[in-house]
C-alpha cells in the first residue's frame, strides 16, 4: 500500500470534566463529524454535544400499540368467528380474559422491535467493522480514558488546526487514525462460493434434521402417541379369553335383539305367501320409503321405478317395476327380493332395516298406483 487514508484525528483526556469541556469546545468550533468515546456514559455529554433526543422510544410506541390492537382483533376473530368455544354460556368476546395475552405480546414485540431498531439503525448491523477498531485509541477508551475523534470528512477539518485545538484543551495524547488496509480493500464475501455452499449445507442439515426429528425420531419408543396401548383390541388375536380372539364370541345360537334370522332363505314363493307388511300405508311410512328408495333403489330402478337407470349403461338395466308381474306380486314377494336380491341385484339386508324394507315396499306400491290409477283415485 502506498498512501494511507486518514479517517480522523483523536485525542485522549484523563478526566470526565476535561472531555465535557472538549466536546463543548469542538461543537462550538462548528465541527459536525466528530464523536466522543467513553468507557461508560458520561452525564451531561448529550447536552454538551447537543445531540437530538433518541427516536427509538417511538419505535416502541408504534410497534407496541400495533401489537396490542392486532392481538385484540385476532383474539376477537379467533374466539367469535373462527373457533367459538362455548364455556358455560359466557360471551365469546371476553375482553378481560384477553388482557394477559395482549399485554405479553405487546411487551414482547415492542422490546424486540426497539432493540432490533437500535441494532440496525444505530449500530448499522450487520456491519461490524470500523476504522477505530483495533487501534490503541480504542483500547484506551474502553478502559479508563475519555477520547474525542474528529473525522477527516468534516468540512472544517484541517489536521494542524485540529491538533492545536486538542493541545489547547489539554489532551494527553493525540493520534491520527487511518483506514486499515483490510477496510480499504474490503469486498463483500456474501457471494463467495464458500459462503454459498455453507448456506446450502446449513439448509440441508437443518431441514433434514427437522424432518427426521418430526417424522422418525418422535415415533420411536418411548414416544407413545396413544396409538400403542396396553389393552386388548377386539379384532386382534389374544389368549386372554382362551378363544384366541381379543373379544368374547357370543354363545352359539345367540340372536341379537331385532335380528331374528330370515326364515324364507331361497324360498320366494313361501315368502310371498306368508309375509305380511306390518306397516300401515300412512304418510310417515311412505315418506321413509321414498327417502330410502331414492338412496338405495333409484340409481338402477330410476326415481319412478320405471327401470330408467341413472347409470347410463354401466350396469345392467333392471326391468320396470310397473310390469303386470310385479304389480301382481304380494308385498312379501317384493320384500323377499329386497332382502335376498335377485339375478344381479344384491341383497340389501345389511343396508336397510326390516322396517325400512317394508317402507320401501309401500312406496313401490304408491309408485305403481300412480301409473295405474283407478277411476276412484281421480275423484
Amino acid at each position: 500500500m502506498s498512501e494511507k487514508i486518514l479517517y480522523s484525528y483523536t485525542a485522549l483526556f484523563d478526566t470526565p470534566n476535561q472531555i465535557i469541556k472538549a466536546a463543548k469546545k469542538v461543537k462550538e468550533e462548528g465541527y459536525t463529524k466528530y464523536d466522543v468515546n467513553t468507557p461508560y456514559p458520561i452525564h451531561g455529554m448529550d447536552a454538551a454535544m447537543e445531540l437530538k433526543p433518541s427516536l427509538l422510544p417511538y419505535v416502541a410506541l408504534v410497534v407496541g400499540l400495533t401489537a396490542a390492537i392486532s392481538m385484540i382483533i385476532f383474539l376477537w376473530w379467533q374466539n367469535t368467528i373462527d373457533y367459538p368455544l362455548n364455556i358455560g354460556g359466557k360471551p365469546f368476546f371476553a375482553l378481560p380474559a384477553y388482557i394477559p395475552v395482549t399485554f405479553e405480546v405487546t411487551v414482547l414485540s415492542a422490546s424486540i422491535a426497539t432493540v432490533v431498531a437500535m441494532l440496525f439503525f444505530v449500530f448499522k448491523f450487520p456491519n461490524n467493522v470500523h476504522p477505530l477498531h483495533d487501534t490503541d485509541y480504542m483500547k484506551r477508551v474502553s478502559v479508563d480514558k475519555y477520547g474525542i475523534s474528529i473525522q477527516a470528512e468534516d468540512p472544517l477539518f484541517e489536521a494542524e488546526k485540529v491538533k492545536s485545538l486538542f493541545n489547547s484543551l489539554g489532551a494527553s495524547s493525540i493520534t491520527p487514525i487511518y483506514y486499515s488496509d483490510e477496510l480499504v480493500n474490503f469486498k463483500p464475501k456474501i457471494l463467495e462460493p464458500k459462503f454459498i455452499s455453507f448456506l446450502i449445507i446449513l439448509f440441508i442439515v437443518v431441514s433434514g434434521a427437522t424432518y427426521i426429528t418430526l417424522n422418525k425420531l418422535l415415533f420411536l419408543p418411548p414416544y407413545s402417541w396413544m396409538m400403542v396401548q396396553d389393552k386388548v383390541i377386539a379384532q386382534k388375536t389374544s389368549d386372554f379369553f382362551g378363544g384366541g380372539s381379543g373379544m368374547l364370541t357370543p354363545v352359539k345360537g345367540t340372536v341379537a335383539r331385532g335380528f331374528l334370522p330370515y326364515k324364507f332363505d331361497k324360498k320366494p314363493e313361501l315368502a310371498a305367501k306368508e309375509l305380511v307388511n306390518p306397516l300401515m300405508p300412512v304418510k310417515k311410512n311412505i315418506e321413509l320409503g321414498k327417502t330410502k328408495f331414492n338412496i338405495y333403489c333409484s340409481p338402477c330402478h330410476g326415481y319412478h321405478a320405471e327401470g330408467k337407470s341413472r347409470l347410463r349403461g354401466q350396469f345392467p338395466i333392471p326391468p320396470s317395476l310397473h310390469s303386470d308381474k310385479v304389480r301382481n306380486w304380494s308385498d312379501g314377494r317384493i320384500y323377499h327380493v329386497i332382502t335376498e336380491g335377485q339375478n344381479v341385484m344384491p341383497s340389501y339386508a345389511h343396508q336397510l332395516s326390516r322396517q325400512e324394507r317394508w317402507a320401501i315396499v309401500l312406496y313401490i306400491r304408491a309408485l305403481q298406483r300412480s301409473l295405474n290409477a283407478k277411476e276412484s283415485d281421480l275423484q
Partner: protein
Amino acid sequence: MTTIDYSQELPVVEGRPTLQEINELIAKPLDTKPDKKYYIALAITLTMLLIGVIGLGLTFYYGVGMWGNNNPVGWGFPIVNFVFWVGIGHAGTLISAILFLFRQKWRNGIARFAEGMTIFAVMTAGLFPLIHVGRPWLAGYLIPYPNQHSLWVDFNSPLVWDVFAVSTYFTVSFIFWYVGLIPDLATLRDRATSKIKKTIYSIFSLGWRHSNRHWQHYEMVYLVLAGFATPLVLSVHTIVSFDFAVSILPGWHSTIFPPYFVAGAVFSGFAMVQNVLIFIRKIFNYEHIITLDTLEKMNKIIILTGSMVGYAYAMEFFTAWYSGVQPEQFTFINRAFGPYAWAYWIMVSCNVLFPQLFWIKKIRRSIPIMFVIAVLVNVGMWFERFVITVTSLSRDFLPSSWAYFKPTLVDGAILLGSFGFFFTWILLFTKSLPVVSIAEIKSVVPGAQPSHEEH
C-alpha cells in the same frame, strides 16, 4: 455513639479503585483457567443434574405414574417446582429494571448477576410445565399457530396465559441482559489477546466502540426495556397465580393471590441472589464492588417482602373466616392443623419468623447469619408452593376422594436435578461472562462523573 450522615449517599464502590483496576478485576475470572475448586463445584452440580436426568428418563419411559401424584392431587412436584423457580427468577428483573427506574445506584454491582440468574431460573422453571404434562414431545400444541386441525388453544385459559407470560419473560430478560452485556463485550474484545476470544467478542459486541452517539441511544433503549420489564415482572407471577386463583378450589380461589405471589417471588429471588452473591464476592474478591451495604439493602428488601408474605398468610385466614364459606374455612384450618401441618409450620417459620431477625442491624450485616436466613427463606418459599398446591388438592369438597400425597424418589430426583441444572448454568456463567457490569460499575466509581464545576 456514631452518627450517620444521611445527607450523603453511601459510596456504591468502596476504596476508590481506578478504572483500570476494575477492568482487570472483573475480567480476571475470564482470563484465568478454572481452579480445582471450580471443577469440584461443577462435578457436584453435574451429578445433581444427572440424577435429575435419570428421574426424567424414568418418567418419560414409564409415565407420570412414577410420581407421587394421586387422584385428587393431580398437581404435585412439577407445579410446585415450576412456581418456585419462576419466583426465583423475579429478583433479577426487579433489581435490573425496577431499581434502575428508581435510580438505585447500588443495583449496578449486582444487576448483571441477578439478570443472569433470572434467565437460568426461568429456563429451569420452563422445563417443569413440559415435564408436568408427561409427554413433553407434545408441547408444541401449547403454541397457537394456524394448523391443519383447525384448532386453536383456548386464549381464555390461564395455562395458555402462562405460556405467553413465561416465554415473554424469558425473551425480554434475555434481551435486557444481552443489551447490558454489549459494552462489556467490547471492553473484553479490546483487551483480548487470543485470536479466538477476540473473534467471538467482536461478533457479539456488534461493533460497539463506546461512542457517545451510541451511548445516547443505548441508554434510551435500556430505559425503554426497563420500563417494559417492570410491569412484565409483575405480570408474570400474577399470571402464574391465576393458574390457581381462576380455579374454584378452596384455598386457591382468592383475589389476594397476585400480589401475594409477586411479593413471595421477589422474596425468594432476593434470598437466592443474596446467597449466591455471598460466594461470588468472596471467591472473586469483589468485596468492594458488591459491598456489605449492598447486601444489607437486599436484606431490607427481604424483610419487606417477607412481611408482605406474612400479611398475606394472615389475611387468607381472615378472608376464610369472614367469607363464611365452609369449605374455605375448613381448608385453612386443615392447612395449619391437618395432615400437612408440618409443611405449613415450616413455611410460616421460615418465611415469616426468621426474616424478622433482620430488624437487628448486627444480623443484617453478619454474612454467616444472613446466609442461613436466606437459605431458610428459600426452603420456606418452596414449602409455601407445596402447601398451596398439595393441601388444597388433597382435601377438596368431597371427603370420600381425599388422599394423602406422598412424593416418590423420582419426584425428589427431579427436584434435585433442577438445582443441578440451575447451578451448572450459574457456574458456567461465572467463568464465561463478566458477572458484574464493567461499564455500570465504572460509572458509579467516586469521581467517575463530571463535577460540572462551571456551574
